[in-house]
């Protein structure tokens, strides 16, 4: 049983041992603890951040906070007009963008084709009809235009092409993955929807690292409707942005309670996350945990060695303290306190670096990966758990060597006998 007196004297000894140790020794151990902390938090945080970046992009540029999509058995969202009317009257919705979707073909370079026996340069595509202003309010699509300009509401025969439709942005030479060659701003391309064929001009190219948008062609909804040969006004998707006072789950539930789920699938951005992203996230989390665990073990061994060397070189004084009546528990706890001070100071410095330096840095300068803009993810709860683990492991790494030395015979320790 450890009483208050034991704790007080242990703190008295442990604190002074650190206070009067070499500054460089203390700095070195704290640097090791900081690096361990960063290894624990940053490595897995970056791995998860790659996926979180993709999830965040999916939400920001495609689904919004809530995405309403067609039921599997239908080609479009039935009763779209009524659904849009309900959305307009639902509290908490900041803005929304209905999208007309239709599958079609896009053909390029047909003007240069001299031999009509050659296979046409056609690629299957989802053509998306949008109200440019509404869509930009929800997804900020205009900011994704990397070449040319975004659509104006009165643009006709003009389209925005997703970057992954173009060879210059996706240089993959695979028969199953067709892309358009030599398409630039101002190029003429042909859209084929059923029997309807229309020549349009490429006004802009978008790139948001979201497959759903980067492999689409966008045009004004009014023109697309005229090409679709449909009079029902049913849309294919509705992306919704929720205001800051409401959370997406609440608004989703309101829409479901209004019976909209009979006509459409209503999901928050989290519900609509692609399964492969969740799988990768799980895998990366596991990888991060494995790498962090190795780092933690290395740190524990380092602290063990540091404390062991410290205790063994002070074995004589440990013996003297035992001789004059300082019990072994006090001496062991003094070393535990030392380890705790190192771990806590290291964690505080690490927390400062992560939350005030690295996270803001990666938010402003995401890591440019092909499928996402990688950010650093360090949720407070998980970080707290990792700090706790680091502190416990460090305390143990301090306790064990101290216990080994303290348990030696007092006189042997004083005389330096084996």
């Amino acid at each position, binding site marked *: 049983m450890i009483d208050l*007196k034991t704790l*007080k*004297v242990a703190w*008295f*000894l442990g604190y*002074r*041992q650190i*206070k*009067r*140790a070499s500054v460089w020794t203390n700095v070195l151990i704290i640097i090791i603890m900081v690096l361990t902390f960063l290894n624990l938090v940053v490595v897995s945080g970056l791995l998860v951040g790659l996926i979180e970046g993709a999830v965040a992009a999916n939400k920001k540029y495609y689904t919004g906070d809530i995405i309403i999509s067609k039921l599997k058995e239908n080609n479009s969202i039935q009763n779209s007009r009524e659904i849009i009317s309900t959305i307009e009257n639902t509290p908490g919705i900041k803005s929304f963008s209905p999208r007309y979707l239709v599958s079609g073909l896009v053909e390029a370079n047909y003007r240069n084709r001299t031999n009509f026996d050659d296979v046409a340069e056609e690629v299957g595509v989802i053509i998306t009809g949008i109200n440019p202003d509404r869509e930009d309010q929800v997804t900020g699509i205009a900011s994704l235009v990397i070449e040319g300009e975004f659509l104006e509401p009165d643009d006709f025969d003009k389209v925005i092409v997703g970057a992954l439709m173009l060879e210059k942005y996706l240089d993959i030479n695979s028969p199953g993955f067709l892309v358009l060659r030599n398409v630039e701003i101002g190029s003429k391309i042909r859209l084929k929807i059923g029997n309807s064929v229309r020549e349009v001009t490429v006004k802009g190219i978008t790139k948001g690292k979201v497959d759903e948008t980067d492999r689409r062609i966008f045009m004004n909804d009014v023109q697309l409707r005229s090409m679709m040969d449909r009079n029902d006004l049913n849309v294919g998707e509705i992306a919704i942005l929720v205001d800051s006072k409401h959370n997406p789950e609440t608004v989703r539930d309101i829409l479901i309670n209004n019976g909209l789920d009979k006509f459409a699938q209503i999901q928050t951005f989290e519900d609509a996350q692609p399964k492969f992203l969740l799988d990768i996230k799980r895998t990366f989390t596991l990888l991060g945990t494995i790498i962090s665990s190795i780092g933690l073990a290395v740190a524990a061994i380092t602290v063990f060695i540091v404390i062991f060397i410290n205790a063994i070189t002070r074995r*004589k*004084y440990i013996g*003297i*303290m*035992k*001789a*004059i*009546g*300082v*019990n*072994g528990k*006090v001496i062991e706890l003094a070393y535990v306190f030392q380890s705790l001070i190192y771990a806590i100071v290291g964690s505080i410095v690490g927390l400062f670096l992560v939350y005030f330096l690295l996270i803001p840095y990666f938010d402003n300068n995401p890591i440019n990966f092909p499928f996402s803009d990688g950010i650093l993810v360090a949720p407070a709860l998980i970080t707290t758990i990792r700090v706790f683990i680091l502190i416990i492991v460090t305390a143990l790494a301090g306790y064990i060597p101290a216990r080994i030395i303290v348990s030696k015979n*007092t*006189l042997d320790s*004083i005389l330096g006998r084996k």
Partner: protein
Amino acid sequence: MKNIIQAKKIEKTFKDGVIETKVLRGIDLNVREGEFVAIMGRSGAGKSTLMYQLSLLDIPSNGELIIDGIDVLKLNNQQKTDFRLEYLGYVFQDYALVPELTAVENVSLPLLMRGIAPKDAFIKAEEVLHELDLHRQVHNLPNQLSGGEQQRVSIARAIVDEPKIIFSDEPTANLDSISARIVIDILKKLNRKGQTIVMVTHEEEYGKETDRIIRLSEGVIEREDILNKDRFL
């Protein structure tokens, strides 16, 4: 005067594999309360080993040891530590101060272990250091003190919680003659106030200043020289 230490047939044998070395061969020794005893002898005579047995720093291979009426060899390790804290004080040849504690912190350590509040412990420790003429070195670390000053701090630490017995192992061996004189005078002064002291020394000059010299040779008491008959007989 009662016997504060009663040692009967104390033996100590060291084993190294099959080789046994008998260092103490049945020592019978009593020390009276308030007595100043010197244990002397040639190198290897067993004087330090005897002091370690008497002061509970080691366990005799055989024998009986009663200190202040308590059969101390029956105590477990924790009880021995507590006993040392309450009854015994130590002065070592090489001072043995904890290097990261200042003089006053070293001296206050036994008081803190007895549960005395730090503020009170520091006040008491400073008083003792002042008594030993160390008022200017109170906040010095051991490496900022001379050998004589360190030994005086060590004595201060040994006496601060008023133990019944002080064991002193060659307290003057590492000191120059002036510092050694100061240390012996301090021990004599403490003894005059009633402090029981058992001191191991190889210096005849200082041994003669005690009440009794116990001379060891090859693990047995060769002779006892009673120097202050008036005091105890």
